[in-house]
């Protein structure tokens, strides 16, 4: 019988079925960062346990670090304390840390694939919900909490129930000015933020197959925003070409043997799914969120919907969203004024994202009264962008060129909204208070659309800016 990647990888990592009925699942790659691990290391110490497979555990610093001056001690004493704990724990347990001095530091979901740590056929866990990102190479990757981090450190395993599997097909082709971010925002809009609860997503179809690895990373990244804890794309030639030559990918003949195995884990033709949903790629236009969860979005040419257009159970959330955002139902999203523009995050902080944003930045200057930040996803992304002169394009247009980190995606460092500021953001969440100010407002969109909004001082259609 034809099998899915999900079944093959799950079965290969199953240690045993637990008395509860859950699977004891081996985790092939454990990625850790400074925010969700100090308590886990403390629990490990209290249990007098070691890290079970230190060679399968890698750490970085991303959430709390400043993106201006990264020399320690950090100005924020709490951030400094977390960094100090991370250094101490990694040293004590003998684990590698990609810190600033390594030249390989960055957002954990950017550096995993970039370093070739993330590989097809693996199970990957990290104390961060956007671990779904790594599914882009054909891995089962999902976020876990801190006590589960303790379990993975101590046992290299998780007690977890197998989810159902849904194939999400994106057929046809994308129009010009429509990007991977618009694809995933459209999927979330059509299937809903609760639509994926209980499912893993396999993204397939011609649009997904044509995507570059960086585009697939963007799509898989936001699986969790659609309720699916993990999402993946089957490994293919794009995957293999992407991994070749990366520092932690196999080299020489070993690479060819690895590539053959990677291809063998892909879903076989005729395999069945618990559910299949199809989206027409040609129907997607640049998307902008207008509300307080990532499902609340419209195409840039459309108007903000009224609560009455939603199912009754959703209407209170719509009303709350309109009140928080200061929008009227029926108002066009295009032209909504912004105060801040942010290009970065594990969703859209990779080199191709910066290239697209720079293309748009060449068309004008950041509008007066708009604060615009470009935050590369990793040191290596920053270095590659600088080698191409992207930072100069951004700076000439009035964007600030920052150092790598999570930055304004969640505002745990000094990069935060102030008061009710409205942000055009390439990140993943428009939750109330997400970008650091309890009353701040977020409009999610692609990096190209963020750059267009920065130039126009308001939500704009990047297809017009680029024309």
């Amino acid at each position, binding site marked *: 019988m034809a099998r899915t990647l999900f079944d093959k990888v799950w079965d290969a*990592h199953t240690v045993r079925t637990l008395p509860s009925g859950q699977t004891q699942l*081996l985790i092939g790659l454990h990625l850790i960062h400074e925010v969700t691990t100090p308590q886990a290391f403390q629990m490990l110490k209290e249990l007098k346990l070691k890290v079970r497979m230190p060679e399968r555990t890698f750490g970085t610093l991303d959430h709390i670090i400043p993106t201006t001056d990264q020399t320690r001690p950090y100005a924020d004493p709490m951030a400094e304390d977390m960094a100090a704990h991370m250094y101490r724990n990694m040293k004590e347990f003998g684990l590698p840390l990609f810190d600033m001095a390594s030249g390989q530091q960055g957002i954990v979901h950017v550096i995993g694939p970039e370093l070739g740590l993330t590989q097809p056929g693996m199970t990957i866990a990290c104390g961060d919900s956007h671990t779904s990102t790594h599914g882009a190479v054909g891995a089962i990757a999902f976020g876990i909490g801190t006590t589960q981090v303790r379990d993975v450190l101590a046992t290299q395993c998780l007690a977890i129930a197998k989810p159902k599997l849904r194939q999400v097909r994106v057929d046809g082709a994308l129009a010009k000015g429509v990007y991977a971010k618009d694809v995933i925002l459209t999927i979330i809009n059509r299937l809903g933020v609760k639509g994926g609860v209980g499912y893993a997503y396999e993204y397939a179809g011609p649009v997904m197959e044509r995507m570059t690895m960086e585009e697939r990373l963007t799509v898989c990244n936001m699986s969790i925003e659609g309720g699916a804890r993990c999402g993946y794309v089957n490994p293919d030639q794009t995957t293999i070409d992407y991994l070749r030559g990366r520092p932690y990918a196999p080299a020489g003949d070993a690479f060819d043997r690895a590539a053959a195995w990677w291809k063998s884990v892909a879903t076989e033709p005729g395999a069945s799914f618990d559910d299949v949903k199809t989206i027409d790629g040609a129907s997607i236009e640049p998307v902008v969120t207008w509300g307080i969860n990532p499902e609340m979005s419209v195409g840039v040419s459309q108007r903000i919907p009224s609560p009455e257009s939603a199912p009754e159970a959703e209407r209170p959330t719509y009303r709350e969203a309109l009140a928080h955002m200061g929008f009227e139902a029926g108002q066009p999203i295009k032209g909504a004024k912004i105060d801040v523009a942010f290009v970065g995050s594990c969703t859209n902080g990779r080199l191709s994202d910066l290239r697209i944003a720079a293309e748009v930045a060449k068309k004008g200057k950041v509008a007066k009264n708009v604060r615009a930040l470009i935050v590369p996803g990793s040191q290596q992304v920053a270095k590659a962008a600088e080698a191409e002169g992207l930072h100069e394009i951004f700076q000439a247009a009035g964007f600030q060129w920052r150092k790598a980190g999570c930055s304004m995606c*969640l505002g*745990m460092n000094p990069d935060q909204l102030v008061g009710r500021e409205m942000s055009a953001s390439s990140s993943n969440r428009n939750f*109330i208070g997400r970008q650091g100010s309890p009353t701040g407002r977020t409009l999610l969109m692609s990096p190209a659309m963020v750059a267009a909004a920065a130039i126009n001082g308001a939500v704009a259609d990047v297809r017009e800016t680029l024309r």
Partner: protein
Amino acid sequence: MSVDYKRRQIVGRGIPVAGNDIDTDRIIPARFLKAVTFEGMGEHAFEDARKQNPEHPFNSPAYRGASVLVVGQNFGCGSSREHAPQALMRWGIRAIVGGSFGEIFFGNCVILGIPCLRASQEDLEWLQKAVSRAPGDAVTVDVEKQEVRFGERVIKATVPDAPRNQLVGGTWDSTAVLLEAGAAIEATAGRLPYVKGW
């Protein structure tokens, strides 16, 4: 005295938090994650929502001491931060009844021994109203029987088999159970080509 890990039944006063898609940023804003322990997290549960809305149930003296949280659909969606269930637990929450739960949040609750039960929209609306009318009365969350009892009424409230077995059997704190696999862990790893080497 030994600790009883079994979560067959939780009895306590209720607290309703209405609304769907309440994310973990809302439950505990990211600025409170800048800490190396979970201590004191309970004070900040729903902090910004409470400041913006004086009527928020977590502000109301009527609900102080409540331990059964009654919520809507997709509660705890978003970030994997365990700080969210930690904050609720440290505030006093021992069980949650809702329509559905963010999956990572649900798993984080299980590993902390906090049952999350799913009930129908109709029953949830009734329970939220009933609890707000009689905040001093106890709600019984029966994990084993998969029902919630309040006053005269019994509503159906489900937990999938595996987490229910863990909660009822007291095996939700999973490290010890996982360690029991012993050498089977290394054996499984050793069969994976990327572990044993290409």
